[in-house]
């Protein structure tokens, strides 16, 4: 019974659903197409409900951490999440109070997110400064050279060095970088195909034991 509930049933549902959606795309049968669209609609509903569960799980986890040392950050997180929830729900239900939600987003969330993202520039600058501190391998030297070419090639430096750097940057972006990126995309595509096949055949069962 335990094996049926934890392994056989989830695997059967997942494989069956995947095959129905796949056949709905491959075969020009209206019934299969309607079943495919209905299953995709179910997936969207389940994903939306997962957000609700995730929100309450976040509150539960940080409620436990709030009592431990350093729990002040968890308290702030809980208060922020509850405030966002209350303001957003109020703005949706009472259009006259919509300004509360707009104010919260424009003057709290946006500046905080932009500030955190701005720290990345400082971290990257420090990392660039320490690039050769620990490793002096060929790959690090190539990375250093490519970064300098792209950074300096974008700048409107005076000719003829500026023009030479701009042409070098264009070649670098269109040939080596593009080749690497195409290789990455092909690898990602093959990986997605392989994962899909493994899920359809039941070799991978991330949804069960």
């Amino acid at each position, binding site marked *: 019974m335990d094996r049926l509930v934890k392994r056989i049933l989830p695997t059967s549902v997942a494989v069956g659903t995947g095959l129905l959606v796949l056949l709905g795309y491959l075969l020009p049968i209206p019934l299969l197409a309607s079943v495919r669209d209905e299953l995709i609609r179910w997936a969207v509903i389940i994903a939306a409900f997962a957000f609700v569960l995730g929100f309450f799980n976040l509150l539960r986890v940080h409620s436990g951490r709030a009592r431990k040392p350093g729990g002040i950050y968890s308290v702030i997180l809980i208060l922020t999440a509850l405030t966002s929830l209350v303001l957003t729900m109020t703005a949706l239900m009472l259009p006259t109070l919509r300004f509360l939600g707009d104010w919260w987003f*424009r003057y709290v969330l946006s500046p905080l997110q*932009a500030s955190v993202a701005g720290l990345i520039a400082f971290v990257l600058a420090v990392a*660039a*400064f320490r690039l050769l501190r620990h490793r002096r391998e060929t790959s690090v030297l190539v990375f250093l050279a490519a970064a300098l070419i792209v*950074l300096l090639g974008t*700048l409107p430096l005076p000719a003829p060095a500026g023009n030479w750097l701009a042409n070098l940057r264009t070649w670098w972006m*269109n040939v080596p*970088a*593009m080749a690497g990126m195409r290789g*990455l995309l092909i690898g990602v595509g093959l990986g997605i195909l392989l994962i899909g096949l493994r899920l359809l055949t039941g070799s991978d069962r991330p949804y069960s034991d």
Partner: protein
Amino acid sequence: MIYCPKCGTANRQGSKFCNECGTPLPATGLRCPMCGALNPVGNLYCDHCSARLIPAEKVSPEEEKSERPSPPKGISLPSVPLGEEGWLSELRAEVEALDLPPEEEIPEWLREREAPAAPAAPEAPPLEAAVPEWLREREAPAAPAAPEAPPPEAVVPEWLRERETPAAPAAPEALSPAEKPMPSLAGIPVSPAGEAPEWLREVEFAPPIPGGPFAQPPETPTADIRAGAPPEEPAAVPPILPVEELPVLSPGEIPDWLKEAPEEAPPELGGLVPAEIPQWLRALRPREEVTVEEEPAETEGFLVGLRGLLPIGKGLDMPPTAQPLLPRAPSPAAVARAELLQGLLSRPLLTPPTIAAREVSRPTGWTVARFLVGLILLAAILLPMMVRLPLSGLPTAPTAEALFAMVNQLPGNTPVLLAWEYSPAESDEMDRVARPLIEHLLRRGARLIVVSTRLEGPAAAEALLASRLADPSERSQRIANLGYLPGQAAGVREALENLDGRTEAITGLPASQTEAMAGVHSVADVGMVVVLAAQPDDLKTWLEQISIANPNMPVVAGVSARTELISTPYLTAGQLGGMVAGLTGGAVYERQLDTGRGREYEYYLTSLGVAQLTVAALMVIGALIFLVGGRKR
């Protein structure tokens, strides 16, 4: 501890092999007399069956009346006395309520059982009391001193009568003890006349008592006969004396040969030795009255009130090899480790260093370097505000120019699906990419249908669109914000097929009732799809789903600088009709659109150029420092 019999090493209790030399260690413990399990030394009760391992000591009646003594504590047993189970207490109460006869009224079966134990037969020798009934019957022919009443004639077996008949034609008045009934021989086959049966020959070949009636030693070894070897000569079988030649003794008289026998001779009686009596049979042998009285009665457990059930002194199972030896002298290494441990324990306790102390202990040079890098970056941000630097030339972006041309070809009042895939964290860059593109679409009279797979996407779109269309009526005609799409790729796929089935996020109206969504049911009804993506994955998701839903749908993108590289393959493959990438692409689009914000983009481009130049300089300086100074670990 168990000491190794070979090297003397002390091993942990329960070890099977020596930890030093690997020699198998003897098992020690108390053997339970009831179940046979081996218990740790010191246990009073068995760990497996709860039987008492050590007999209870005899307690005087005064002590029993004063206080019931608590049993000594064992090793693995509870310190409190074992209480009776509920069912046992109930059963005991029922038995007491039955009004049983007093103790003197012993049942018939118990009296028969106890009868042999009582010394009620003074004429019988003590030896007979210790021998079972069947054994006494076998011994009877050898000890004719206990005459019994003559058995009936028919009890004598046929073969014996035939054998006796020629030897004693005239039967005596009183039958000899040899004619006692032998029921145990009834099933034995009769041997031919003049030849003793097999069982009798085995008995006769046993070592006889010197001076007894069977004093003649056998000539043939018993083992040969038992092995089945046929007797070669009939003379090898010792002759059996006729019954009439046996001496007739009066009752209570002991024959001479028996008097001369040593005290330990009884095992030889009848050719049997006591070792042949089974254990279970010996356990059933009645005990003497005196012995039973000396053993105290059990006061606890299931054996309350019973005596003599546990043997005294037989529970300890200690092999002779388990001699506790003194441990060897510790090795120098062990002594050194012990001294080190003692030294560590004798040290005063040190308070752990706090986080602040650990930070102070970091190299000062590294802190200074980080501080300098921060100062340089701050200067790179502030410098373009104070000084106009010649770092913002006229950039070129062919993809942005191609996109501008595509938007210019859109007919008026065309619905355009706008995928808003960036959050406020990326809005500093993406707003300057999206703003000229949206401005251009609105100028062309397009209706914008906004969706997003990011939670902050609809709000970020509303913040930008509200600044462009402040009039609510105009906004409702030109913009429909359909909000967040859960489910990632599945959500995009579902939305592309069912755009009018959603709800407008700002007004709360069904999308099909808004003016901006007039005539739009799915992605097939829009004239263009614009993807504003800050992350590469978002752009890939939209391109894949649109190519499935409507492969001929024109798709353009406004992306961040980091997404530009991964977008280029889709652009060259034709899946993307045009693209605006980063601040440079936005500046080119802005310049072509001519919205009057050229100075703003020039400032941002100058700041970006200064930052890029600063980072490049830091990389070069850092590389030189660490190349010259050496690698740090």
